[in-house]
């Protein structure tokens, strides 16, 4: 067998079957996937959540994870942020001809590990191969289905004046890990992506306080964009305090060097919760018990001043607007 992906691996013929049997099934096997039918068939009742996301990260391997782990965590987290318990995922790959089979194998094993950690099954999948140059190594799409417990009502439009804003940990780790890998920047303390499935953290929070108003994972666009989304959807103001927002020293230094503001840098294993004031301490304590929430912090509150806007009290005392990220993050030039 060749050690690279060929167009024939995506043809649906013999090589495709080989790929499924030798690469995908050994890692991802479960009763529904093993049937290899056109669709996965399952029973479900209650309120379901359904989401999809595509992953085109470059580089595909980065400190703290790879595109496979990211593809599982991203979709698990999207379901979790709706208050859903993730059940099943699809996994669809678009592979550039010539891609290394051993790297593919590595990525499928990451998918397996992340799915196992999150307790979800991959129940359907697909692989397409495109000509060299028509995709950049590997793109992954995952879709996911989850179930929402009765009584849980989470939406970006639910923030109420007086609510507290809680962040589950340090910001900017993923974005800086990717940037430093991409640009060959080396720091004395290596910065790792925070890529992680947050469904268990979410279910622990919901056990402590089923009345959570908003959850969101501040991925692309960072914390600033998530807070602005809440402010706009709920038509409320949000005030956060700069020195309450946890940022790793190494990330802070890298941001200074690259000219970034950490509030705009991507995360893949953090969430922002907007909770009733009386529940804030309980939620914070619960978060700190989970390894993905141990640096959680109360960073601000929802206010009736300046609806639709996010304001940050800077370390020096004055306040300023925190706008959404616009355009791409690019390092400064002088």
């Amino acid at each position, binding site marked *: 067998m060749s050690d690279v992906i060929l167009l024939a691996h995506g043809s649906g013929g013999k090589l495709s079957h080989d790929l499924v049997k030798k690469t995908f099934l050994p890692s991802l096997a479960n009763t529904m996937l093993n049937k290899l039918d056109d669709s996965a068939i399952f029973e479900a009742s209650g309120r379901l959540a359904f989401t999809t996301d595509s992953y085109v990260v470059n580089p595909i391997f980065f400190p703290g994870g790879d595109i496979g782990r990211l593809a599982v965590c991203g979709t698990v987290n999207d379901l979790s942020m709706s208050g859903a318990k993730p059940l099943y995922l699809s996994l669809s790959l678009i592979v550039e001809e010539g891609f290394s089979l051993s790297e593919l194998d590595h990525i499928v094993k990451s998918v397996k590990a992340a799915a196992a950690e999150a307790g979800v099954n991959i129940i359907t999948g697909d692989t397409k191969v495109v000509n060299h140059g028509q995709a950049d190594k590997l793109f992954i799409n995952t879709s996911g289905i989850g179930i929402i417990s009765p009584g849980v009502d989470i939406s970006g439009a639910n923030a109420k004046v007086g609510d507290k804003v809680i962040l589950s940990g340090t910001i900017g780790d993923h974005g800086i890990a990717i940037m430093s890998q991409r640009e060959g920047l080396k720091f004395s303390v290596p910065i790792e992506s925070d890529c992680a499935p947050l469904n268990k953290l979410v279910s622990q929070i919901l056990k402590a306080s089923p009345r959570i108003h908003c959850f969101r994972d501040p991925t692309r666009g960072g914390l600033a964009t998530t807070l602005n989304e809440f402010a706009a959807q709920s038509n409320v103001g949000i005030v956060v305090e700069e020195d309450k927002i946890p940022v790793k020293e190494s990330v802070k230094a890298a941001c200074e060097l690259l000219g970034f503001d950490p509030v705009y840098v991507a995360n893949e294993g953090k969430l922002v919760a907007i909770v009733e004031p009386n529940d804030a301490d309980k939620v914070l304590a619960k978060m700190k018990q989970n390894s993905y929430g141990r640096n959680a912090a109360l960073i601000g509150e929802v206010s009736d001043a*300046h609806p639709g*806007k996010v304001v940050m009290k800077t*370390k*020096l*005392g*004055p306040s300023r*607007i925190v706008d959404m990220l616009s355009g791409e993050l690019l390092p400064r*030039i*002088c």
Partner: protein
Amino acid sequence: MKFLDEYQNSELATKLAHRIANHSTKPIRLMEFCGGHTHAIMRHGIRQLVPATVEMRAGPGCPVCVTATTDLDKAIALAWLPNVTITTFGDMMRVPGSYSSLQRTKAEGADVRVVYSTIDAMEIARENPKKSVIFIGIGFETTAPTIAASIIKAQQGGIENFHVLSCLKLTPPVMKALLDSGEVKLDGIICPGHVSVIIGSRPYEFIPADYGVACVISGFEPIDILLCVGKLVEQIEAGQPKVEIAYRRGVKPQGNRKALELMGEVFQIDGANWRGIGIVPQSGLKINQKYEHFDAAKVFSGLLRCARNDKPVREPKGCRCGDILRGVATPFECHLFGKVCTPEKPVGPCMVSSEGACAAYYQYGSPESSGKI
């Protein structure tokens, strides 16, 4: 954190702010030359910490913003020449030229790539010997030495397909031009920290001597800036303007000899076209004769003339970037600001660049000022 948190200490900031308020008796106007300062001032809310007597105006120190539309049009025309790869700092991509932007040119099929350093651009040239790789060389004295170093490195490595379109500009001559124009009355200048690391403090000495305007070189952390403002207020109140360094950890009076030598080796001083200001004599750097085979303006001059087809340069209607760069207007005084012109749909370069004044005022405006948006 070492060298960061110390310079963002709120107690120290409050003390410095009180000291400024105690010293300041009359209204004064300061200009922060550098866009990096404008961003730091807005991001940390420093305008709210200094007394109302101290007005702070943004200046022309944003390399992307001061790049003349005609130079941008030239870069776009170069991108369409056969076998040409344009390499540029990311901020340039979205700046609207007369008819297009580099971003749009890339989307339409030209080979335009964002790089993070000139050396990266040179590496692209090394890896693609059949292409002419042109780096759009914007910036001030800060970026000039690295561009010079990459040209020397290309010379040593025999990388003949590497070229630079030099739009490099010099700081003290444009300060002189602004002061000569008399359009905006200034009492003091917050001099750029990074530029001064290279050129030192001596090139500013004509400013207090000839114009009676105070000059203090500042770093980019909030404590640096407050210290600088304090020194400026003291100088102005005492009526004794001079050049001071409030950024001792970075700047020496004589500058950085090695960097200045590199610049001297590759460039010669020439007039430069500044957006909003026009041609300022002795304010630009062009590649000298010894290295002219790296000079994109020279190498491609014939082809460029054909490609551009003599289309006239057009400036965006209603955009006040020029006034803002000269310190004549603040972003809030532009009718397009925040309405027609936003970071998502920028009309002028000051809203595009991460160092542009409009981008800083838009992104970090105080909750009160945002009422104007």
